[in-house]
């Protein structure tokens, strides 16, 4: 979707609403998968779009818009994660495991994986979310996070290893 509002000046509400609808799932999910907290994720997503409204005329293309949204959303997630750490809010590891419903094993597995992702160190979490939510290859992730491709690859490997170990440990308990 091309940004049709750059030349005409301030964004019209209807145009902006279209932008929000087009990208809300991506922004909300980045925040949700990073923090594993729907309320916080919605708050962050709203903030990201409010910021977008101020800068929308500076964005030159839809690709630019998407990378801008990803970058701002992840930065806000990191800030929120660190703020929570400072306030010693309950860590995801400390919360009880979801009770496995007999009927929907897949749903239970997905929820458990999301919780495990949220326990990874912040850089690994970003790499995993961009890789498996956004389906970006290591080169794109490296460009988005401004880090070397090899770092992305090694972090992906280590993150997957940690997730497997944690998943195995959970299974065993």
């Amino acid at each position, binding site marked *: 979707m091309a940004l049709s509002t750059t030349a005409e000046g301030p964004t019209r509400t209807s145009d902006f609403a279209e932008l929000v609808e087009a990208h809300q799932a991506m922004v909300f999910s980045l925040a949700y998968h990073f923090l594993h907290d729907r309320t916080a994720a919605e708050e962050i997503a709203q903030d990201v*779009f409010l910021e977008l409204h101020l800068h929308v005329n500076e964005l030159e293309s839809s690709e630019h818009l998407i990378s801008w949204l990803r970058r701002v959303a992840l930065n806000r997630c990191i800030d929120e994660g660190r703020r929570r750490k400072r306030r010693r809010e309950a860590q995801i590891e400390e919360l009880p495991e979801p009770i496995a419903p007999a009927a929907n094993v897949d749903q239970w597995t997905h929820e458990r994986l999301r919780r495990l992702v949220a326990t990874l160190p912040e850089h690994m979490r970003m790499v995993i979310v961009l890789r498996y939510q956004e389906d970006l290859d290591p080169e794109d992730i490296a460009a988005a996070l401004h880090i070397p491709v090899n770092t992305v690859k090694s972090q992906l490997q280590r993150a997957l290893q940690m997730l497997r170990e944690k998943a195995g440990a959970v299974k065993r308990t």
Partner: protein
Amino acid sequence: MDHRQEDQFEYQLKSALHRQEPPNGFTVRVLARLEPARPEPWPQPWLHLPSLRWALACALGIAVFAGGWMFQQERRRAEGEAARQQVMLALRITGAKMQLAEARVRHLSER
């Protein structure tokens, strides 16, 4: 863990991390937060009228001039007040010393 298992794990991860829509009414809530914060479009369309622009420039010029004049007046008034205070101080000292002279003269006259 073989490749098939590894693929399975990544597949599950991908499914777990699939994009999710935010709760219903998300866009409406964003737009509602946007309303009070939305900056006024600038410049205002009516400012495109040359006569209005000139009027505004003139009004601004007059305001600046009036402000400068008032500042000068206030500074002059403060300087005048300081000078007046100095005169008062000088005359008070003069008065005190004349009082002293008078007291001494009276004292001698009474003797």
